[in-house]
Protein backbone atom coordinates (compact mmCIF):
# COMPACT_ATOMS: atom_id res chain seq x y z
CA UNK A 1 0.00 0.00 0.00
CA UNK A 2 1.43 3.36 -0.90
CA UNK A 3 1.50 6.39 1.34
CA UNK A 4 -1.40 8.10 -0.38
CA UNK A 5 -3.72 5.14 -0.01
CA UNK A 6 -2.87 4.71 3.64
CA UNK A 7 -3.70 8.30 4.23
CA UNK A 8 -7.05 8.10 2.48
CA UNK A 9 -8.01 5.04 4.44
CA UNK A 10 -6.84 6.57 7.69
CA UNK A 11 -8.91 9.65 6.95
CA UNK A 12 -11.94 7.57 6.11
CA UNK A 13 -11.58 5.71 9.38
CA UNK A 14 -11.16 8.93 11.34
CA UNK A 15 -14.14 10.42 9.55
CA UNK A 16 -16.31 7.46 10.38
CA UNK A 17 -15.25 7.53 14.00
CA UNK A 18 -16.19 11.14 14.44
CA UNK A 19 -19.19 10.72 12.16
CA UNK A 20 -20.43 7.95 14.41
CA UNK A 21 -20.53 10.36 17.31
CA UNK A 22 -22.44 12.90 15.26
CA UNK A 23 -24.76 10.15 14.17
CA UNK A 24 -25.37 8.96 17.69
CA UNK A 25 -26.19 12.44 18.91
CA UNK A 26 -28.32 12.96 15.83
CA UNK A 27 -30.15 9.76 16.61
CA UNK A 28 -31.28 11.18 19.93
CA UNK A 29 -32.58 14.27 18.19
CA UNK A 30 -34.44 12.20 15.64
CA UNK A 31 -36.13 10.16 18.35
CA UNK A 32 -37.66 13.07 20.19
CA UNK A 33 -38.53 14.65 16.91
CA UNK A 34 -40.27 11.53 15.77
CA UNK A 35 -42.24 11.16 18.94
CA UNK A 36 -43.20 14.71 19.75
CA UNK A 37 -42.09 16.81 16.81
CA UNK A 38 -39.93 18.77 19.14
CA UNK A 39 -36.47 19.64 17.99
CA UNK A 40 -34.72 19.09 21.29
CA UNK A 41 -32.09 21.76 21.69
CA UNK A 42 -31.48 20.55 25.22
CA UNK A 43 -30.16 17.25 23.91
CA UNK A 44 -26.60 18.51 23.89
CA UNK A 45 -26.96 19.68 27.43
CA UNK A 46 -28.31 16.38 28.65
CA UNK A 47 -25.24 14.88 27.04
CA UNK A 48 -23.00 17.39 28.74
CA UNK A 49 -24.70 16.92 32.09
CA UNK A 50 -24.30 13.16 31.79
CA UNK A 51 -20.60 13.50 31.28
CA UNK A 52 -20.42 15.55 34.47
CA UNK A 53 -22.50 13.02 36.34
CA UNK A 54 -20.26 10.28 34.99
CA UNK A 55 -17.26 12.17 36.31
CA UNK A 56 -18.97 12.66 39.64
CA UNK A 57 -19.54 8.94 40.00
CA UNK A 58 -16.22 7.70 38.64
CA UNK A 59 -13.86 10.27 40.09
CA UNK A 60 -15.95 11.92 42.77
CA UNK A 61 -17.36 8.79 44.39
CA UNK A 62 -14.79 6.40 43.01
CA UNK A 63 -17.32 3.93 41.64
CA UNK A 64 -16.25 1.42 38.99
CA UNK A 65 -16.65 2.57 35.42
CA UNK A 66 -19.38 0.20 34.31
CA UNK A 67 -21.54 0.78 37.34
CA UNK A 68 -21.14 4.53 36.96
CA UNK A 69 -21.95 4.35 33.27
CA UNK A 70 -25.07 2.36 33.97
CA UNK A 71 -26.22 4.79 36.64
CA UNK A 72 -25.47 7.77 34.44
CA UNK A 73 -27.50 6.35 31.58
CA UNK A 74 -30.37 5.60 33.92
CA UNK A 75 -30.22 9.08 35.43
CA UNK A 76 -30.18 10.73 32.02
CA UNK A 77 -33.14 8.65 30.95
CA UNK A 78 -35.01 9.63 34.08
CA UNK A 79 -34.15 13.28 33.58
CA UNK A 80 -35.43 13.20 30.02
CA UNK A 81 -38.56 11.40 31.09
CA UNK A 82 -39.21 14.12 33.62
CA UNK A 83 -38.50 16.86 31.12
CA UNK A 84 -41.13 15.41 28.86
CA UNK A 85 -43.70 14.47 31.43
CA UNK A 86 -43.45 17.56 33.58
CA UNK A 87 -42.43 20.29 31.20
CA UNK A 88 -42.86 19.59 27.51
CA UNK A 89 -46.27 18.08 28.18
CA UNK A 90 -47.60 21.46 29.22
CA UNK A 91 -47.21 23.02 25.81
CA UNK A 92 -48.51 20.22 23.66
CA UNK A 93 -50.58 21.59 20.84
CA UNK A 94 -48.65 24.81 20.67
CA UNK A 95 -46.84 25.58 17.45
CA UNK A 96 -43.71 23.57 16.84
CA UNK A 97 -41.56 26.52 17.60
CA UNK A 98 -42.81 26.92 21.13
CA UNK A 99 -41.31 23.51 21.78
CA UNK A 100 -37.99 24.54 20.33
CA UNK A 101 -37.98 27.62 22.54
CA UNK A 102 -38.79 25.60 25.59
CA UNK A 103 -35.96 23.17 24.98
CA UNK A 104 -33.61 26.09 24.52
CA UNK A 105 -34.75 27.38 27.88
CA UNK A 106 -34.22 23.97 29.44
CA UNK A 107 -30.80 23.82 27.83
CA UNK A 108 -29.85 27.10 29.48
CA UNK A 109 -31.11 25.90 32.81
CA UNK A 110 -29.20 22.64 32.60
CA UNK A 111 -26.05 24.46 31.62
CA UNK A 112 -26.49 26.85 34.52
CA UNK A 113 -27.25 24.06 36.95
CA UNK A 114 -24.26 21.99 35.96
CA UNK A 115 -21.89 24.88 36.40
CA UNK A 116 -23.47 25.77 39.70
CA UNK A 117 -23.30 22.23 41.02
CA UNK A 118 -19.99 21.04 39.61
CA UNK A 119 -18.29 24.33 38.88
CA UNK A 120 -17.40 25.35 35.37
CA UNK A 121 -13.90 23.83 35.13
CA UNK A 122 -13.03 21.10 32.67
CA UNK A 123 -12.13 17.67 33.97
CA UNK A 124 -11.58 14.13 32.83
CA UNK A 125 -11.93 10.54 33.96
CA UNK A 126 -10.40 7.24 32.94
CA UNK A 127 -12.26 4.70 30.86
CA UNK A 128 -11.28 1.15 29.95
CA UNK A 129 -10.32 2.43 26.52
CA UNK A 130 -8.58 5.71 27.29
CA UNK A 131 -5.23 6.03 25.51
CA UNK A 132 -5.49 2.61 23.89
CA UNK A 133 -5.21 2.07 20.21
CA UNK A 134 -5.44 -0.70 17.72
CA UNK A 135 -3.12 -1.06 14.78
CA UNK A 136 -4.43 -2.62 11.60
CA UNK A 137 -1.43 -2.71 9.30
CA UNK A 138 -0.55 0.90 8.70
CA UNK A 139 -3.91 2.13 9.91
CA UNK A 140 -4.29 3.25 13.50
CA UNK A 141 -7.56 3.50 15.32
CA UNK A 142 -8.06 4.45 18.92
CA UNK A 143 -10.05 1.88 20.83
CA UNK A 144 -12.46 4.53 21.93
CA UNK A 145 -13.37 5.20 18.31
CA UNK A 146 -14.04 1.53 17.81
CA UNK A 147 -16.29 1.51 20.85
CA UNK A 148 -18.12 4.55 19.56
CA UNK A 149 -18.68 3.05 16.13
CA UNK A 150 -19.85 -0.19 17.68
CA UNK A 151 -22.19 1.62 20.04
CA UNK A 152 -23.63 3.62 17.18
CA UNK A 153 -24.16 0.48 15.17
CA UNK A 154 -25.81 -1.48 17.93
CA UNK A 155 -28.03 1.33 19.10
CA UNK A 156 -29.16 2.13 15.57
CA UNK A 157 -30.05 -1.43 14.77
CA UNK A 158 -31.91 -1.83 18.02
CA UNK A 159 -33.86 1.33 17.53
CA UNK A 160 -34.59 0.59 13.93
CA UNK A 161 -35.96 -2.78 14.80
CA UNK A 162 -37.89 -1.35 17.72
CA UNK A 163 -39.60 1.36 15.72
CA UNK A 164 -40.31 -0.61 12.59
CA UNK A 165 -41.08 -4.04 13.88
CA UNK A 166 -42.64 -3.78 17.29
CA UNK A 167 -46.18 -2.62 17.85
CA UNK A 168 -45.00 -0.18 20.46
CA UNK A 169 -42.56 1.27 17.97
CA UNK A 170 -45.26 1.76 15.38
CA UNK A 171 -47.42 3.31 18.07
CA UNK A 172 -44.66 5.81 18.72
CA UNK A 173 -44.73 6.82 15.12
CA UNK A 174 -48.49 6.96 15.13
CA UNK A 175 -48.51 9.21 18.17
CA UNK A 176 -46.21 11.60 16.44
CA UNK A 177 -48.15 11.76 13.22
CA UNK A 178 -51.55 12.32 14.67
CA UNK A 179 -51.62 12.57 18.38
CA UNK A 180 -55.35 12.94 18.71
CA UNK A 181 -55.98 9.83 16.67
CA UNK A 182 -53.41 7.98 18.72
CA UNK A 183 -55.23 8.88 21.90
CA UNK A 184 -58.50 7.79 20.39
CA UNK A 185 -57.00 4.45 19.52
CA UNK A 186 -56.15 3.89 23.13
CA UNK A 187 -52.42 4.38 22.76
CA UNK A 188 -50.99 5.62 26.05
CA UNK A 189 -49.61 8.64 24.30
CA UNK A 190 -48.17 10.32 27.36
CA UNK A 191 -46.31 7.26 28.49
CA UNK A 192 -45.14 6.48 24.99
CA UNK A 193 -43.73 9.93 24.34
CA UNK A 194 -42.01 10.05 27.70
CA UNK A 195 -40.52 6.67 26.95
CA UNK A 196 -39.05 7.97 23.74
CA UNK A 197 -37.63 10.97 25.52
CA UNK A 198 -36.10 8.65 28.06
CA UNK A 199 -34.51 6.54 25.32
CA UNK A 200 -33.19 9.66 23.72
CA UNK A 201 -31.78 10.80 27.04
CA UNK A 202 -30.10 7.44 27.50
CA UNK A 203 -28.51 7.69 24.06
CA UNK A 204 -27.31 11.18 24.98
CA UNK A 205 -25.73 9.81 28.12
CA UNK A 206 -23.91 7.13 26.15
CA UNK A 207 -22.58 9.84 23.85
CA UNK A 208 -21.58 12.00 26.77
CA UNK A 209 -19.72 9.17 28.46
CA UNK A 210 -17.91 8.19 25.29
CA UNK A 211 -17.07 11.72 24.29
CA UNK A 212 -15.62 12.88 27.58
CA UNK A 213 -12.29 11.00 27.40
CA UNK A 214 -11.28 12.82 24.22
CA UNK A 215 -13.17 16.07 24.48
CA UNK A 216 -12.98 16.39 28.28
CA UNK A 217 -15.90 16.82 30.63
CA UNK A 218 -16.71 20.39 29.80
CA UNK A 219 -19.67 22.74 29.76
CA UNK A 220 -18.94 23.41 26.09
CA UNK A 221 -19.75 19.83 25.11
CA UNK A 222 -23.30 20.79 24.26
CA UNK A 223 -22.06 22.46 21.07
CA UNK A 224 -21.94 19.07 19.43
CA UNK A 225 -25.70 19.31 19.13
CA UNK A 226 -25.20 21.82 16.34
CA UNK A 227 -23.18 19.34 14.34
CA UNK A 228 -25.76 16.69 15.06
CA UNK A 229 -28.43 19.04 13.84
CA UNK A 230 -26.61 19.42 10.58
CA UNK A 231 -26.40 15.64 10.39
CA UNK A 232 -30.10 15.23 11.04
CA UNK A 233 -30.95 17.73 8.37
CA UNK A 234 -28.59 16.15 5.86
CA UNK A 235 -30.16 12.79 6.43
CA UNK A 236 -33.71 14.00 6.76
CA UNK A 237 -35.70 14.74 9.91
CA UNK A 238 -37.42 11.82 11.46
CA UNK A 239 -35.37 9.22 9.64
CA UNK A 240 -33.14 6.98 11.68
CA UNK A 241 -31.05 5.75 8.76
CA UNK A 242 -30.95 9.39 7.71
CA UNK A 243 -29.35 10.39 10.99
CA UNK A 244 -26.68 7.75 10.56
CA UNK A 245 -26.00 8.61 6.94
CA UNK A 246 -25.99 12.31 7.75
CA UNK A 247 -23.63 11.88 10.68
CA UNK A 248 -21.16 9.72 8.80
CA UNK A 249 -21.29 11.97 5.77
CA UNK A 250 -20.60 15.00 7.91
CA UNK A 251 -17.67 13.30 9.59
CA UNK A 252 -16.18 12.26 6.27
CA UNK A 253 -16.67 15.66 4.65
CA UNK A 254 -14.96 17.37 7.56
CA UNK A 255 -12.09 14.95 7.50
CA UNK A 256 -11.38 15.09 3.81
CA UNK A 257 -12.12 18.78 3.41
CA UNK A 258 -9.86 19.43 6.39
CA UNK A 259 -6.94 17.76 4.68
CA UNK A 260 -7.41 18.24 0.96
CA UNK A 261 -9.09 21.62 0.67
CA UNK A 262 -7.42 24.93 1.45
CA UNK A 263 -7.36 25.87 5.12
CA UNK A 264 -10.64 27.31 6.32
CA UNK A 265 -12.83 25.07 4.20
CA UNK A 266 -13.26 22.33 6.75
CA UNK A 267 -16.33 23.76 8.40
CA UNK A 268 -17.42 25.84 5.48
CA UNK A 269 -17.51 22.77 3.28
CA UNK A 270 -19.82 20.90 5.62
CA UNK A 271 -22.30 23.73 5.58
CA UNK A 272 -21.99 24.32 1.85
CA UNK A 273 -22.75 20.67 1.26
CA UNK A 274 -25.68 20.98 3.64
CA UNK A 275 -27.18 23.86 1.70
CA UNK A 276 -26.55 22.12 -1.59
CA UNK A 277 -28.12 18.87 -0.46
CA UNK A 278 -31.20 20.61 0.82
CA UNK A 279 -31.69 22.49 -2.41
CA UNK A 280 -31.53 19.24 -4.34
CA UNK A 281 -33.40 17.14 -1.77
CA UNK A 282 -35.48 19.57 0.28
CA UNK A 283 -36.28 16.83 2.79
CA UNK A 284 -32.74 15.65 3.29
CA UNK A 285 -31.23 12.56 1.73
CA UNK A 286 -33.53 10.00 3.32
CA UNK A 287 -36.32 12.17 4.68
CA UNK A 288 -39.90 11.04 4.39
CA UNK A 289 -41.66 12.11 1.23
CA UNK A 290 -44.08 14.77 2.29
CA UNK A 291 -46.66 16.95 0.76
CA UNK A 292 -50.21 17.36 1.82
CA UNK A 293 -53.09 16.21 -0.27
CA UNK A 294 -55.52 18.90 -1.23
Amino acid at each position, binding site marked *: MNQEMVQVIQLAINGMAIGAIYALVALGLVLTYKATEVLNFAHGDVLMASSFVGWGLIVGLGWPFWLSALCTVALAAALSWIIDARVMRLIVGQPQFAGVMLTIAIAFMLRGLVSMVFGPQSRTYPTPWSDQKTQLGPIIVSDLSLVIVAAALVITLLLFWFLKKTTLGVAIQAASQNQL*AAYLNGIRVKRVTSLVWAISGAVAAVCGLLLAPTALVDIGLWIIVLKALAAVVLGGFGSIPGAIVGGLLLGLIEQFAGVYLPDGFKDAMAYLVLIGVLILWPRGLLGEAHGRRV
Partner: protein
Amino acid sequence: MKHNNDKHNATMAMTQPILAVRNLETWYGPVNAIKGINLEIQAGHIVAVLGANGAGKTTLLNTIAGVIDPFKGSVEFEGRAIHGQDPDQVARGGVVLVPEGRQVFPFLSVRENLMMGSFARSSREGMAADLARIFEWFPRLLERQDQHAGLLSGGEQQMLAIGRALMARPAVLLLDEPSLGLSPLLTREIFSIVKRINTELRTAILVVEQNAAIALATANDGYIMELGRIVAAGTCAELMEKEDVKEFYLGGAAANADREDGQKQRWKRRKTWR
Protein backbone atom coordinates in the same frame (compact mmCIF):
# COMPACT_ATOMS: atom_id res chain seq x y z
CA MET B 1 -88.62 18.96 25.10
CA LYS B 2 -88.78 18.14 28.74
CA HIS B 3 -91.82 16.12 28.09
CA ASN B 4 -90.16 14.22 25.27
CA ASN B 5 -87.19 13.36 27.32
CA ASP B 6 -89.23 12.12 30.19
CA LYS B 7 -91.33 9.91 28.07
CA HIS B 8 -88.29 8.61 26.33
CA ASN B 9 -86.58 7.85 29.59
CA ALA B 10 -89.64 6.23 30.99
CA THR B 11 -89.84 3.71 28.19
CA MET B 12 -86.31 2.55 28.82
CA ALA B 13 -86.02 3.00 32.52
CA MET B 14 -85.86 -0.70 33.31
CA THR B 15 -82.39 -1.33 31.90
CA GLN B 16 -79.30 0.52 32.91
CA PRO B 17 -77.93 2.41 29.89
CA ILE B 18 -74.44 1.44 28.75
CA LEU B 19 -73.54 5.08 28.25
CA ALA B 20 -75.24 7.99 29.95
CA VAL B 21 -74.58 11.69 29.60
CA ARG B 22 -76.01 13.89 32.32
CA ASN B 23 -76.30 17.67 32.36
CA LEU B 24 -73.25 17.97 30.23
CA GLU B 25 -71.92 21.45 29.58
CA THR B 26 -68.80 22.26 27.55
CA TRP B 27 -67.06 25.51 26.82
CA TYR B 28 -64.41 26.53 24.32
CA GLY B 29 -62.91 29.44 26.19
CA PRO B 30 -65.69 32.00 26.06
CA VAL B 31 -67.92 29.92 23.74
CA ASN B 32 -70.55 27.74 25.35
CA ALA B 33 -70.80 24.93 22.83
CA ILE B 34 -73.08 22.54 24.68
CA LYS B 35 -75.42 23.72 27.32
CA GLY B 36 -76.67 20.94 29.50
CA ILE B 37 -77.29 17.73 27.66
CA ASN B 38 -78.87 14.49 28.83
CA LEU B 39 -78.54 11.45 26.64
CA GLU B 40 -78.55 7.70 27.05
CA ILE B 41 -77.57 4.71 25.00
CA GLN B 42 -78.94 1.33 25.85
CA ALA B 43 -76.70 -1.66 25.40
CA GLY B 44 -77.00 -2.97 21.89
CA HIS B 45 -78.75 0.09 20.55
CA ILE B 46 -77.85 2.49 17.79
CA VAL B 47 -78.51 6.11 18.62
CA ALA B 48 -78.44 8.86 16.03
CA VAL B 49 -77.77 12.50 16.82
CA LEU B 50 -78.90 14.99 14.23
CA GLY B 51 -78.49 18.71 14.13
CA ALA B 52 -77.52 21.68 12.07
CA ASN B 53 -74.02 22.94 11.66
CA GLY B 54 -72.49 24.17 14.83
CA ALA B 55 -75.14 22.57 16.96
CA GLY B 56 -72.44 20.99 19.06
CA LYS B 57 -72.62 17.39 17.93
CA THR B 58 -68.90 17.04 17.46
CA THR B 59 -68.36 18.72 20.79
CA LEU B 60 -70.68 16.24 22.43
CA LEU B 61 -68.83 13.25 21.02
CA ASN B 62 -65.48 14.76 21.85
CA THR B 63 -66.57 15.37 25.40
CA ILE B 64 -67.76 11.80 25.77
CA ALA B 65 -64.50 10.47 24.36
CA GLY B 66 -62.45 12.60 26.73
CA VAL B 67 -60.97 14.79 24.02
CA ILE B 68 -62.38 17.83 25.78
CA ASP B 69 -63.15 18.11 29.47
CA PRO B 70 -66.69 19.09 30.33
CA PHE B 71 -67.29 22.17 32.39
CA LYS B 72 -70.17 20.56 34.24
CA GLY B 73 -72.08 17.33 34.23
CA SER B 74 -71.00 13.74 33.89
CA VAL B 75 -70.48 10.96 31.40
CA GLU B 76 -71.04 7.45 32.67
CA PHE B 77 -70.04 4.26 30.95
CA GLU B 78 -71.47 1.11 32.42
CA GLY B 79 -72.26 3.08 35.53
CA ARG B 80 -68.74 4.46 36.01
CA ALA B 81 -67.97 8.12 35.50
CA ILE B 82 -65.47 8.52 32.66
CA HIS B 83 -65.44 12.26 32.15
CA GLY B 84 -62.13 13.89 32.93
CA GLN B 85 -60.23 10.80 31.83
CA ASP B 86 -57.75 11.03 29.02
CA PRO B 87 -59.03 9.89 25.67
CA ASP B 88 -56.72 6.89 25.61
CA GLN B 89 -58.13 5.72 28.91
CA VAL B 90 -61.66 6.14 27.65
CA ALA B 91 -60.77 4.21 24.51
CA ARG B 92 -59.19 1.38 26.44
CA GLY B 93 -62.30 1.31 28.57
CA GLY B 94 -64.27 0.45 25.47
CA VAL B 95 -65.66 3.75 24.20
CA VAL B 96 -64.03 4.45 20.86
CA LEU B 97 -64.55 7.55 18.77
CA VAL B 98 -64.12 7.84 15.02
CA PRO B 99 -63.50 11.56 14.89
CA GLU B 100 -64.72 14.08 12.39
CA GLY B 101 -62.49 14.52 9.37
CA ARG B 102 -60.50 11.36 8.85
CA GLN B 103 -57.82 11.32 11.45
CA VAL B 104 -55.51 8.75 9.95
CA PHE B 105 -51.79 8.31 10.58
CA PRO B 106 -50.55 9.77 7.33
CA PHE B 107 -47.12 8.15 7.16
CA LEU B 108 -48.11 4.73 8.34
CA SER B 109 -49.31 2.18 5.85
CA VAL B 110 -52.96 1.26 5.76
CA ARG B 111 -52.21 -2.03 7.47
CA GLU B 112 -50.20 -0.37 10.23
CA ASN B 113 -53.04 2.08 10.74
CA LEU B 114 -55.37 -0.81 11.30
CA MET B 115 -52.94 -2.48 13.67
CA MET B 116 -52.92 0.66 15.76
CA GLY B 117 -56.63 0.26 16.26
CA SER B 118 -56.08 -2.89 18.26
CA PHE B 119 -54.17 -0.99 20.92
CA ALA B 120 -57.34 -0.34 22.83
CA ARG B 121 -58.59 -3.89 22.92
CA SER B 122 -58.43 -5.90 26.05
CA SER B 123 -57.25 -9.14 24.46
CA ARG B 124 -55.19 -9.87 21.39
CA GLU B 125 -57.38 -12.80 20.58
CA GLY B 126 -59.11 -12.92 17.23
CA MET B 127 -57.15 -10.02 15.82
CA ALA B 128 -56.33 -11.70 12.56
CA ALA B 129 -59.94 -12.59 12.08
CA ASP B 130 -61.01 -9.02 12.75
CA LEU B 131 -58.49 -7.74 10.27
CA ALA B 132 -59.74 -10.15 7.69
CA ARG B 133 -63.31 -9.07 8.36
CA ILE B 134 -62.41 -5.43 7.89
CA PHE B 135 -60.69 -6.15 4.64
CA GLU B 136 -63.76 -8.07 3.60
CA TRP B 137 -66.01 -5.14 4.45
CA PHE B 138 -63.69 -2.62 2.81
CA PRO B 139 -61.94 -4.40 -0.07
CA ARG B 140 -60.57 -1.06 -1.21
CA LEU B 141 -58.34 -1.01 1.86
CA LEU B 142 -56.99 -4.44 1.03
CA GLU B 143 -55.90 -3.17 -2.36
CA ARG B 144 -54.12 -0.21 -0.81
CA GLN B 145 -52.84 -1.93 2.32
CA ASP B 146 -49.20 -0.97 1.85
CA GLN B 147 -49.80 2.60 0.75
CA HIS B 148 -49.26 5.52 3.15
CA ALA B 149 -52.63 6.45 4.54
CA GLY B 150 -52.00 10.11 3.85
CA LEU B 151 -52.22 9.48 0.13
CA LEU B 152 -55.60 7.81 0.15
CA SER B 153 -58.62 9.55 -1.28
CA GLY B 154 -61.03 11.11 1.16
CA GLY B 155 -63.42 8.22 1.09
CA GLU B 156 -60.70 5.66 1.48
CA GLN B 157 -59.46 7.48 4.56
CA GLN B 158 -62.93 7.44 6.05
CA MET B 159 -63.13 3.69 5.56
CA LEU B 160 -59.77 3.31 7.16
CA ALA B 161 -60.78 5.37 10.19
CA ILE B 162 -63.88 3.26 10.76
CA GLY B 163 -62.02 0.03 10.18
CA ARG B 164 -59.38 1.08 12.65
CA ALA B 165 -61.92 1.81 15.34
CA LEU B 166 -63.49 -1.60 14.80
CA MET B 167 -60.13 -3.22 15.41
CA ALA B 168 -60.54 -2.05 19.00
CA ARG B 169 -63.68 -4.16 19.45
CA PRO B 170 -65.35 -1.31 21.30
CA ALA B 171 -68.32 -1.68 23.58
CA VAL B 172 -69.56 1.70 22.46
CA LEU B 173 -68.63 3.10 19.08
CA LEU B 174 -68.98 6.82 18.53
CA LEU B 175 -69.14 7.84 14.88
CA ASP B 176 -68.84 11.47 13.87
CA GLU B 177 -70.33 11.95 10.42
CA PRO B 178 -69.14 8.66 8.98
CA SER B 179 -70.65 9.39 5.59
CA LEU B 180 -68.77 12.62 5.17
CA GLY B 181 -67.43 12.61 1.63
CA LEU B 182 -68.48 9.09 0.84
CA SER B 183 -70.26 8.08 -2.31
CA PRO B 184 -73.93 7.16 -1.94
CA LEU B 185 -73.09 3.53 -2.44
CA LEU B 186 -70.45 3.60 0.25
CA THR B 187 -72.64 5.58 2.60
CA ARG B 188 -75.19 2.87 2.36
CA GLU B 189 -72.54 0.23 2.79
CA ILE B 190 -71.13 1.94 5.82
CA PHE B 191 -74.49 2.11 7.44
CA SER B 192 -75.20 -1.48 6.66
CA ILE B 193 -71.86 -2.28 8.21
CA VAL B 194 -72.83 -0.18 11.19
CA LYS B 195 -75.94 -2.26 11.46
CA ARG B 196 -73.92 -5.45 11.14
CA ILE B 197 -71.46 -4.35 13.80
CA ASN B 198 -74.40 -3.67 16.00
CA THR B 199 -76.13 -6.95 15.42
CA GLU B 200 -73.11 -9.23 15.04
CA LEU B 201 -70.92 -7.76 17.76
CA ARG B 202 -73.64 -6.28 19.96
CA THR B 203 -71.78 -2.98 19.93
CA ALA B 204 -73.73 0.05 21.05
CA ILE B 205 -73.31 2.87 18.56
CA LEU B 206 -73.76 6.60 18.79
CA VAL B 207 -73.71 8.15 15.36
CA VAL B 208 -73.75 11.81 14.42
CA GLU B 209 -74.93 12.24 10.91
CA GLN B 210 -76.10 14.85 8.41
CA ASN B 211 -77.77 12.29 6.21
CA ALA B 212 -80.77 12.03 8.47
CA ALA B 213 -82.75 9.68 6.30
CA ILE B 214 -80.24 6.90 6.44
CA ALA B 215 -79.30 7.61 10.05
CA LEU B 216 -82.85 7.40 11.28
CA ALA B 217 -83.46 4.32 9.20
CA THR B 218 -80.53 2.58 10.82
CA ALA B 219 -80.81 3.76 14.40
CA ASN B 220 -83.14 2.74 17.21
CA ASP B 221 -83.31 6.09 18.95
CA GLY B 222 -82.59 9.62 17.86
CA TYR B 223 -81.79 12.98 19.36
CA ILE B 224 -81.96 16.33 17.67
CA MET B 225 -79.56 19.03 18.74
CA GLU B 226 -79.75 22.71 18.14
CA LEU B 227 -77.40 25.37 19.46
CA GLY B 228 -75.96 23.18 22.16
CA ARG B 229 -79.21 21.75 23.44
CA ILE B 230 -81.27 18.67 22.76
CA VAL B 231 -84.52 19.84 21.32
CA ALA B 232 -86.15 16.55 20.47
CA ALA B 233 -85.63 12.95 21.39
CA GLY B 234 -87.39 9.70 20.84
CA THR B 235 -87.33 6.50 18.92
CA CYS B 236 -86.50 6.94 15.28
CA ALA B 237 -89.99 6.01 14.27
CA GLU B 238 -91.38 8.78 16.46
CA LEU B 239 -88.95 11.32 15.16
CA MET B 240 -89.62 10.51 11.55
CA GLU B 241 -93.24 11.32 12.10
CA LYS B 242 -92.53 14.86 13.24
CA GLU B 243 -93.28 17.54 10.67
CA ASP B 244 -90.25 19.62 11.57
CA VAL B 245 -87.95 16.68 11.25
CA LYS B 246 -89.44 15.82 7.92
CA GLU B 247 -89.03 19.30 6.64
CA PHE B 248 -85.57 20.13 7.92
CA TYR B 249 -83.78 16.86 8.16
CA LEU B 250 -85.35 14.63 5.64
CA GLY B 251 -85.51 17.26 2.89
CA GLY B 252 -89.24 16.75 3.00
CA ALA B 253 -92.04 17.64 0.65
CA ALA B 254 -92.07 21.36 1.30
CA ALA B 255 -88.79 21.95 -0.42
CA ASN B 256 -89.60 20.01 -3.51
CA ALA B 257 -93.00 21.59 -3.81
CA ASP B 258 -91.38 24.96 -4.35
CA ARG B 259 -89.99 23.90 -7.62
CA GLU B 260 -93.32 22.97 -9.10
CA ASP B 261 -94.10 26.43 -10.39
CA GLY B 262 -90.84 26.53 -12.28
CA GLN B 263 -89.33 29.12 -9.99
CA LYS B 264 -87.34 28.28 -6.97
CA GLN B 265 -88.69 29.92 -3.95
CA ARG B 266 -86.01 31.93 -2.28
CA TRP B 267 -87.34 32.01 1.20
CA LYS B 268 -85.56 30.20 3.85
CA ARG B 269 -87.55 29.31 6.83
CA ARG B 270 -85.24 28.83 9.69
CA LYS B 271 -86.48 26.61 12.38
CA THR B 272 -86.14 27.83 15.89
CA TRP B 273 -86.99 25.14 18.34
CA ARG B 274 -88.36 25.89 21.66
